[in-house]
C-alpha cells in the first residue's frame, strides 16, 4: 500500500508535468477557497480558454483517452486522471469546454456515425467550438425522462418547440446535445430521440439564470420552431433515452465531488486561530474542535475514497459509484462548513461576501452549496442511485412507466 505511480504512470506524469510547467504558470497553493466557489470569470475568458485548448491540442494533450484519428492521444483512463492532477497545479482558464469534452464528445463518439464524428470531434478537441447539453426542463428535473420539449418530423428536418433549463454555457455554445420527445403516444422512455443542434440557428433564445450567489453559469433555452436536420440525430428515433444515459454516465464521472473544501479546510483552521472564545483562540474551544474533526473525517473520507478508486483504475478496473457519493457528501459538507464558519464569527457572520473575513469564503460556501446539492442529481436522486444501482434495492413503485406519456399525471387534477 502506497501512493506511488507505477513506472509507466510516473513516466507519463513526468512528461505531462514537464510540458505543463513549460507552457503554463503554477497556481498559488495558498489560494483562498473563495475563488473556486464564486464561478466568476475574468474578461476575455473565452479567448483565453480557446487558446489554452488549442495549445494542448497541438501537443496532443487535449483529450487523453480519445482516439488519435480525431485529435485525441489514445491513452488510458489512468493517464487521463494523471493529466488532470497535473493540470490542476497550473492556472487554467474557465472550463468552457467541460461539457463538450466531458459529456457531449463521449456521447458522439459512442453513438455517432463516422461522418458525425469527423464533423464535430476534431473542432471540439482543438477548442474551435464550444458545446452545451440541454436535458433538464422546468417540469422535468429529477424525472428527466418526463421531458416535454417536442420534435415533429417535417421533411428532412425536425421542428422543435419547448424549453430547456439549467444549460451551462448555452450563451456561448456553438453546438448543443439534447433529448426531445418525438412520440407522446408511447410510454415516456420510448418516445425520446437524441439530437445535436446548432446553437446559432434561428428559433433559439438563451436567457441567463441568476443563482442565489449571483453566479450566472446556467441558462434557460427556448425553442420556437427551431429546425434541426435529421442528419443531426444520434442513434435511432425512439432510442434517445439510451443515448442520454451515455451522456449522464459521463456527467457523473466528470462532476466529481467536494470541490473547494480543500482550501476551505485550511481557511477554517486559520479562522479558528484568529477568532477568540472566552479570551482564547477558538481552536482551543472543545466544541469547535468536535466540529472541525467531523468536517475533517468527512472530507478525508471522500478524498481517500477517490484514491481507492484511482487505485482500481490504475489496476485496470472501472471507476465505481464514488462520484455519486463524493457529490452527496461533499455538497452537504460545503453547506455545513459555510454555516459553521459564519456561526463562529457570531454577529459578524451576518456580513455579506463582499465585506466578510477571508474574502467571504463562508458566506460564499453557504450560497454555493444549495446549487451543488441539486445540480447534476439532487441528494435524493443520488441516494436513489446508491440504493438501486449500488445496493441493488428494489426501485420505486412506478405509475408512469406503462402508460402513454400524454396520460402521465403532471400536476394536481383541476
Amino acid at each position, binding site marked *: 500500500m502506497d501512493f506511488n505511480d507505477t513506472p509507466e504512470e510516473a513516466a507519463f506524469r513526468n512528461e505531462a508535468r514537464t510540458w505543463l510547467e513549460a507552457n503554463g504558470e503554477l497556481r498559488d497553493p495558498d489560494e483562498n477557497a473563495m475563488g473556486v466557489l464564486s464561478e466568476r470569470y475574468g474578461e476575455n475568458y473565452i479567448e483565453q480558454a480557446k487558446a489554452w485548448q488549442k495549445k494542448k491540442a497541438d501537443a496532443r494533450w487535449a483529450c487523453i483517452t480519445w482516439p488519435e484519428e480525431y485529435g485525441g492521444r489514445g491513452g488510458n483512463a489512468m493517464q487521463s486522471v494523471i493529466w488532470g492532477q497535473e493540470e490542476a497545479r497550473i492556472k487554467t482558464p474557465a472550463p468552457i469546454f467541460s461539457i463538450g469534452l466531458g459529456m457531449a464528445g463521449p456521447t458522439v463518439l459512442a453513438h455517432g456515425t463516422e461522418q458525425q464524428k469527423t464533423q464535430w470531434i476534431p473542432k471540439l478537441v482543438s477548442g474551435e467550438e464550444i458545446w452545451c447539453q440541454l436535458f433538464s426542463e422546468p417540469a422535468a428535473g429529477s424525472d428527466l425522462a418526463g421531458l416535454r420539449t417536442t420534435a415533429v418530423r417535417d421533411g428532412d428536418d425536425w421542428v422543435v418547440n419547448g424549453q430547456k433549463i439549467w444549460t451551462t454555457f448555452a450563451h456561448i455554445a456553438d453546438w448543443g446535445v439534447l433529448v426531445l420527445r418525438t412520440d407522446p403516444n408511447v410510454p415516456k422512455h420510448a418516445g425520446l430521440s437524441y439530437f445535436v443542434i446548432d446553437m446559432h440557428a434561428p428559433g433559439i433564445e438563451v436567457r441567463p*439564470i441568476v443563482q442565489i450567489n449571483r453566479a450566472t453559469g446556467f441558462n434557460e433555452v427556448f425553442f420556437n420552431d427551431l429546425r434541426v436536420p435529421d442528419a443531426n440525430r444520434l442513434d435511432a428515433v425512439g432510442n434517445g433515452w439510451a443515448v442520454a444515459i451515455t451522456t449522464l454516465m459521463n456527467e457523473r464521472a466528470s462532476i466529481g465531488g467536494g470541490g473547494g473544501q480543500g482550501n476551505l479546510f485550511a481557511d477554517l483552521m486559520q479562522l479558528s486561530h484568529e477568532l477568540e472564545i472566552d479570551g482564547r483562540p477558538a481552536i482551543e474551544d472543545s*466544541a469547535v474542535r468536535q466540529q472541525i474533526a467531523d468536517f475533517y473525517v468527512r472530507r478525508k473520507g471522500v478524498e481517500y475514497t477517490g484514491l481507492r478508486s484511482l487505485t482500481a483504475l490504475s489496476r485496470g478496473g472501472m471507476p465505481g459509484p464514488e462520484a455519486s457519493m463524493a457529490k452527496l457528501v461533499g455538497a452537504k459538507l460545503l453547506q455545513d462548513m459555510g*454555516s459553521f464558519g459564519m456561526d463562529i464569527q*457570531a*454577529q459578524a457572520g*451576518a456580513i455579506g461576501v463582499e465585506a466578510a473575513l477571508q474574502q467571504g469564503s463562508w458566506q460564499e460556501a453557504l450560497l454555493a452549496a*444549495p446549487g451543488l*446539492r441539486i445540480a447534476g442529481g439532487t441528494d435524493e436522486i443520488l441516494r436513489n442511485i446508491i440504493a438501486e444501482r449500488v445496493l441493488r434495492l428494489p426501485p420505486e413503485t412506478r405509475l408512469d412507466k406503462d402508460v402513454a406519456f400524454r396520460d402521465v*399525471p403532471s400536476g394536481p387534477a383541476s
Partner: protein
Amino acid sequence: MNFDFSEDQKLLQKTVRDYLEEHSPLAVCRDVLESDKPYAPDLWKGAAELGWLGAVIPEEHGGAGFGHLELCLIAEEVGRALAPIPFSSSVYLASEAVLRAGSETQQQALLPKLASGERIGTLALAEKPGIVSEASVQARFENGALTGTKVPVPDGMAAGLAVVAARTPEGVSLVLADLSADGVKREPVDSFDGARPQATLSFENAPAELLGGAGQGWALAEALLDRAAVLMAFEQLGAAERAFEITKEFTLGRYAFGRPVASFQAIKHRLADIWVAIELARSNAYYGAWALSGDEPELPVAAAGARISATDALELAAVEMVQLHGGVGFTWEYDCHLFYRRAKALGLALGSAREWRDKLVRRLDAQSK
C-alpha cells in the same frame, strides 16, 4: 392550564397578519434586498400607526401599552412576512433598553418618538468577528464623548439613535448616541441578508449620554439580549412556518414520475421532521413568552431555550426549502433564498445558537447550585 395565547391576543395577531399580507408581500422584502434602501419606509409607517412599534411602551409615553405577549405575536407575523423594517433593532433592543434603563427624562424624550417610528433605534455591540462579550468591547466613553467603531450594526443606516456598549472608568456601560451628531460616521457594509442591512458606525468624540448605571452596561446588555431572544424566537418561528408552508405547497404541486413530489417518502418524512422541529420551537418559544411577559426568574433559561430551538427550526426549514424546491430553489428569481438568507441572518443576530447553547447550560448549572 393556560399555556397559550388568549383569543384576544390571537385576534390581534390575525389583524397583523392581514395587514402584512396586504402590505408586505415578499416583493417588498426583495425590493430592499435588491436596492440600496435601508428599509421599507411605508411599511414602517404602517407598523407605527398600528401601534406595533410601541406595543410595550406605556400609553403615557405614546405607546399602545399592549404587553409582551402581544409583542411576541406581532414579532411572529413580522417574521412570517420577512418584513424589511428595523423592527427588532428598534423595538426589541433600543426601545427595551430605554424602557429598562432610561431615566425619566430619557424615556420622556425618546419613547414617544420610538413608538411613533419617527426615531429608529438600534443596539451596537459588536466590534469584530467572534463572540461579543464584555471583554470584546473596546469603544470608550468619557466626559460625554464616545470613540470607537461598531460593526456590524443591524439597521445602522436606518437608525437615528444607537444604544452603544462602551468602556467607562467604571467598566462597560451602555450609552445613547444620536447618529446624526458630529463625530459619527456611518457606512453601509455588505449584508448576507440584504433585506436586513448592516452598517459600520464610527464614533470620534461623538456626543453621547449614559443609559443606566455606569459600569452596569454588560449586565444590562445581557438582560436585553435575553428579552430580545424571546421576541426574535417568535420572529424566527414565523419565518420558519412560512418557509414550511411554501415548501409543502410546492412539493404538492410539483410532479415527478407521474406523482406529486410530496408523495415520495423521502420528501414526506423530511417535511414531517421540519414540522416537528417547528412544533418544538413553538413550545419553547411559548415558554419564553411566559417568562418574558411576567419577568420571571426563569427568563434567562427560557430565553436561551427559545432562541436555540427557533434557530434550529428556521435553519432547517430554510435549508430544506431550497433543497426541496430543486433547481428553482437556488435561483435568484424564486423566493427561497430570501428565507435562506434571513434564516442565517436571524440565527446570527443575537449571537449564534452555539453561543446560546453554552449560555443555557451555564445557566442551568448555576441554577442547580
